């Protein structure tokens, strides 16, 4: 029984991995150190967004505002730097703004009972609008070298973004596995009424998860613009889909209560390699979303189908 569960859970992403490998073997230069480092750097941004997404997916939520938060928070930091402020202080403020947006999402969801997809979609659109206002409709650039270095330099042969992603992965894993809050996040995803009956403040859990989600999205946005050396108001657009895709492909349940931080990182790597392969095959980025979207439907479809089949067959009389 247990063994079979594992098989169905990962069968979908095995297929995708094989597809990526086949694509890789046909593309010259796919398995070079430079390319792998490059993909890891790109995938790190996706992974951080996916970590954020995992936190809220577990409590049966979703964040549809990732793109807006990524753009706006980076815009705030970039704007401050252009006005001569300290690089680290500017980044700190940008991240703090992300946290505040997350708290607002959490409050809307837990106190006013707005469904997560509406609350986050709206705040995402508002922050996207604000990013356009701050950047006057176009991208800003000319940030200090130190900032650009953070997005592009290696540390011990590994990109700095990847290090940051690893740190966030460790922190998230510790939170989910070894703190009461983490255990309550899973419990909330499983059965909210039980959590309430235990006298646990379920609203606090939601606010916590969404705040952390906002914080992570902001970090991802700032790292992305550091890597690009510009802040573009729509820079986060594709990460919205990628974050959901990475979590689901990694094995986080859309229905809440199940998933782990490492799963979304694995998922992000898969999505990263998939995008890279598509890039190298010179497929128009506009078509790439089509592939990623199809991948989500495939993975979710297969897992739901298998789950139903199994529940039917596993019944013992």
């Amino acid at each position, binding site marked *: *029984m*247990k063994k079979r569960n594992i098989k169905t859970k990962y069968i979908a992403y095995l297929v995708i991995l094989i597809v990526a490998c086949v694509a890789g073997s046909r593309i010259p230069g796919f398995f070079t150190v430079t390319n792998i480092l490059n993909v890891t750097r790109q995938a790190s941004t996706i992974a951080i967004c996916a970590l954020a997404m995992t936190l809220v997916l577990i409590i049966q939520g979703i964040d549809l505002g990732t793109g807006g938060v990524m753009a706006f928070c980076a815009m705030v930091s970039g704007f401050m730097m252009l006005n001569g402020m300290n690089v680290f202080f500017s980044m700190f403020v940008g991240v703090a703004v992300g946290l505040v947006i997350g708290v607002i999402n959490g409050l809307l969801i837990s106190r006013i009972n707005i469904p997560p997809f509406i609350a986050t979609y709206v705040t995402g659109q508002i922050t996207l609008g604000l990013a356009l206002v701050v950047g006057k409709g176009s991208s800003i650039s000319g940030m200090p070298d130190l900032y650009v270095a953070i997005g592009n330099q290696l540390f011990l042969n590994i990109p700095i973004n990847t290090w940051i992603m690893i740190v966030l992965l460790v922190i998230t894993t*510790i939170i989910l*596995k*070894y*703190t*009461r809050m*983490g*255990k*309550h996040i*899973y*419990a909330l*995803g*499983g*059965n909210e*009424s*039980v*959590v309430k*009956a*235990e*006298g*646990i403040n379920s609203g606090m859990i939601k606010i916590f998860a969404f705040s952390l989600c906002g914080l992570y999205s902001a970090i991802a946005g700032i790292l992305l613009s550091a890597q690009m050396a510009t802040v573009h108001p729509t820079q986060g657009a594709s990460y919205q889909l990628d974050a959901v895709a990475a979590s689901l492909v990694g094995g986080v349940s859309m229905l*809440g*209560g*199940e998933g782990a931080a490492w799963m979304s990182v694995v998922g992000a790597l898969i999505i990263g390699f998939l995008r890279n392969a598509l890039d190298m095959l010179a497929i128009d980025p506009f078509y790439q979303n089509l592939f990623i979207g199809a991948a989500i439907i495939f993975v979710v479809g297969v897992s739901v189908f298998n789950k139903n089949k199994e529940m*039917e*067959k596993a*019944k013992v*009389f």
Partner: protein
Amino acid sequence: MAKILEMKNITKYIFDEYGKKINGTTVKILNGVNFDLEEGEVHVLVGENGAGKSTLMKILGGNIPADEGEMFLDGKPYFVKGPREAREKGVAFVHQELNLCLNLDIAHNIFLGREPRKNGFVDHKTIYKKSREYLDKFGFQDIDPKTIMHNLSTARQQVVEIVKALSYDSRILIMDEPTASLTAGEIDHLFELIRDLKSRGVSIIYISHRMDELQIVGDRLTILRDGQSIETLSMKDYNQDYIVKQMVGRTITNLFNCTHKVLDEDILKVENFKIGPNTKPISMHVKKGEIVGLGGLVGSGRSEFARGIFGVRNYFGGTIIYKGEEYKKPSAEKSIAKGIAYLSEDRKIDGLIVAKDIKENISMASIKKLFRYHVLNNRLERKEAEAKIKELNVICRSMDQLVSTLSGGNQQKVLFAKWLESKPDLLILDEPTRGIDINAKAEIYEIMDNIAKQGVAIIMISSELPELIGMSDRIYVMRRGSISLEINKNEEMTQERILANTL
């Protein structure tokens, strides 16, 4: 024996979802109820649905506050703000609906909300060790605390719920219908556990609709009726007829008064029907105007069989012959069109939409008939609903009342109304009287008899043997996914014979 708990003059007005009194209401759910509990006794609470048993226990368990009255625990005033506080004071509640997170393992369910910590982090080692100890202590050495809840059977989940309640060192344990989803063997085990708890000085308040259990486990019994405590008596004076009379306020004579006639024409014939890939094939038939009982344990495949015929579950080979022709690839839509109706076991999940009003629920299965020129004819809908409400004696304020506000028995009647409205020729009833009071049961039996009189065939799945024997013209007993026994009317229909073929 020392009194551990006293509840005096408890009054509760009708309340909203937060347990607060609804403004301006004078409707009392509980009206000056008195109740007490001695140390180490099992005090049974009986009463019809809506008599106030659950409300009284919710007040004791801290889920809702009382509007008037006092409570004393060990002679000291007892006042709690929530279930958590009640549990810390030693009052634990084992709910009828399981209160567990199915995605977590057993140990984390037991310790939910009070996970032990070491250096600020959750101490998993202690959680598993302590859970192991609790499970051992109550005789479940074979259950691994690391098992994820959804891999357990309902009975086992119930065990976890009980162990969780006891892990708080509870002195008072409230059990609301603990045997509702248990099999005979599991019930015996539960009773053993209760006896063991008693010897440890734990007091138990036991709520059940199954009269035959009460005598086995109970020491004393309190009868509630219409929110008032009618009488408390010792089990030594147990007299079922008297208790039933006190519960309903009148005596029910002849619960099963069947006057319908079986016609000599098969409406349904099932051949070599397999409900699972590895189960034995089932062959059975049902005649017009016949009530066929389907007995067996919970989980023996009765519901799966019914759902397979109705077309909401896959089956693994076999033929269904309905009204003389083969019924291929059944689906709910086709079944309804052909005149098959299925009243599911859990009315709140796939029977009724409780957040909708009565008339909408009644018209749901026959909604197609209510359209005129592609527009829903509301007047017709109301007319039909009103007729059905009257016919089935649904007690409600109006047909616009939400189904969630009705008592269990009346909800069941609405479910009957919904399916009768679709004018069925074959009615499949899955546990038609589960969790409803004896008065409503009698009415349901009468409804069934009336339906059968019109030539409608009925398949009735039931776990209650008296009901199965009393209502059925013929009984099939199921065991492990197939039929183990068929009993005809002229044969001996005894509880012993049925039981022997279920295990």
